[in-house]
């Protein structure tokens, strides 16, 4: 019974954190894009537009769920459900931290650990295309159909280099369970260089990491590979005919896929929750210093140098600064440290990758469709195979591990 209660609590926490991240990822994306393009981004709803996600959700909820005529009703309704279901399910396999003791109860940070975790995530991501493809097909719209077709072709094609890029670190790490994979990446070379798979000998997996990341952009239909919803060609692609919550489901699925993919990259290539350098050299103080730095900047700008025309900054910025300082102090509490540190490092790595996703969206233009296909079949796929061969060769030369 104990197991069920703990699992229920963990599921609640992860689901809540995941949903909040989904909502705020969109806010962060709009803000980052805005600053890349010298704009302000969402600013009106709440301080610095912080309540914008809430407003968006309310707007989408209260909109009329419009069903166009001559659509295939069953599949039209089913498609967004499928999309969001397959997008949300993978998060239950991601390990966020080692097993810790909370109030005398020992438990893993993470929901489930199955011994073919990597394969399961691959399976879910390959089934995830149905939502988009069906949505495009059922809408009874040529543009939507084109979007659905493009997305299924693109996802089948990019699945290959992605899967092969995944195999190379697996050769080094010797297991399919995500928790064991992270545990295999513990430790440091020469006491400083972490044994993450992108640094791990005998063959560091930098290339397969890059291939994985590029394929991940295509798998999640993000710029520069967002051909399924290319606005200048296909109106809005596969979700042209959707409105209200159905549209929100597709939107949510995209962001959930993004988070899952970055978590997978973190687990497989960036060593999961292991810090960048050992705790002896003070990696435990990184979050404290980061938060204190942010707090200092906010306090300075709020109290000493308020901008003209933004009167509320005098109030909101010092308040946010104090909140940051309080978070910094939380990281210093010795009881919470073994729980918070791994989660911090995991979230930091995933967050950096998410920022790269957004950054690239603000930087690169969209590919042409034939370029997209040529790129994966003629460059990415052979590169992944060559990388796999070299890795296999290096591992074989090294001999069996212990």
């Amino acid at each position: 019974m104990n197991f069920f209660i703990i699992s229920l609590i963990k599921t609640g926490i992860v689901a809540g954190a995941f949903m909040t991240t989904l909502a705020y990822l969109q806010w962060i994306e709009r803000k980052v894009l805005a600053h890349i393009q010298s704009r302000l981004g969402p600013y009106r709803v709440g301080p610095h537009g912080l309540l914008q996600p809430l407003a968006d959700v309310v707007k989408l909820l209260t909109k009329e769920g419009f069903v166009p005529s001559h659509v295939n009703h069953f599949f039209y309704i089913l498609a967004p459900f499928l999309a969001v279901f397959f997008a949300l399910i993978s998060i239950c396999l991601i390990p966020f931290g080692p097993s810790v003791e909370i109030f005398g109860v020992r438990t893993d940070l993470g929901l489930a650990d199955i011994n073919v975790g990597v394969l399961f995530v691959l399976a879910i991501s390959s089934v995830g295309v149905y939502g988009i493809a069906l949505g495009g097909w059922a809408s009874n719209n040529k543009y939507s159909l084109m979007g659905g077709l493009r997305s299924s072709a693109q996802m089948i094609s990019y699945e290959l280099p992605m899967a092969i890029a995944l195999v190379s670190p697996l050769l080094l790490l010797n297991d399919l369970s995500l928790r064991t994979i992270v545990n295999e990446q513990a430790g440091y070379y020469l006491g400083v260089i972490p044994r993450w798979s992108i640094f791990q000998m005998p063959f560091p997996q930098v290339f397969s990491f890059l291939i994985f990341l590029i394929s991940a952009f295509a798998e999640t239909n993000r710029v520069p590979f967002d051909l399924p919803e290319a606005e200048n060609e296909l109106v809005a692609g596969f979700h042209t005919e959707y409105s209200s919550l159905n549209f929100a489901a597709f939107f949510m699925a995209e962001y959930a896929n993004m988070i899952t993919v970055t978590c997978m990259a973190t687990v497989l290539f960036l060593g999961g929750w292991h810090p960048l350098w050992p705790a002896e050299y003070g990696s435990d103080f990184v979050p404290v210093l980061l938060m204190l730095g942010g707090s200092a900047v906010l306090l300075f700008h709020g109290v000493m140098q308020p901008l003209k025309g933004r009167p509320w900054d005098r109030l909101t910025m010092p308040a946010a600064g104090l909140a940051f300082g309080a978070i910094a102090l939380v990281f210093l509490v010795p009881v919470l440290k073994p729980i918070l540190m791994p989660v911090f490092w995991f979230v930091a790595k995933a967050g950096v990758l998410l920022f790269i996703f957004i950054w690239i969206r603000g930087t690169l233009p969209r590919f042409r469709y034939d370029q997209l296909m040529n790129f994966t079949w003629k460059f990415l796929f052979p590169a992944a195979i060559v990388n796999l061969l070299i890795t296999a060769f290096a591992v074989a030369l090294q001999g069996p591990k212990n």
Partner: protein
Amino acid sequence: MDLILFIIFATIAVACGISLVVQKHPIGSALSLIGVMGSLAVLYLLLGAEFIAAVQLIVYAGAIMVLFVFVIMLLNAGEEANKGRSWPSRLLGIPLLTVFLGLLAYLLQRMAPSMGTVTFGAFNVGAKEIGRSLFNHYLLPFEVTSVLVLIAILGAIVLARKEID
């Protein structure tokens, strides 16, 4: 718990299988087939064969059926027209079906006691053991199969290639 899950997913599999035959629209049939494969994967999982379950999902539901759905969408296949059955099929169909079902039931009844039963979680082998036996014990069949697949790919390319004049 295992038994309840088995009954649920076996029912889903059978229901999807019937719906696969009955559905008028090709997309509906394809999706029912995906349902069959998904519930089969769960049944494998109940037997403890996680690797086979994951591969079932990746290969069948994730790759082959996506291709099927893609082709159906690309050709924009419409609903099947109900042409009505010809008289020999009506005359022979029902007796033949009865005979077939009877034969199946008889054989199952004859064979079942001698085969023994399978328990849940019986095939609990990891991916490691499967890989080992695939590359040690069954190396030749494995390689021959891969050559077969390669030949099929070559054939497809030859058939699909434009004639070069």
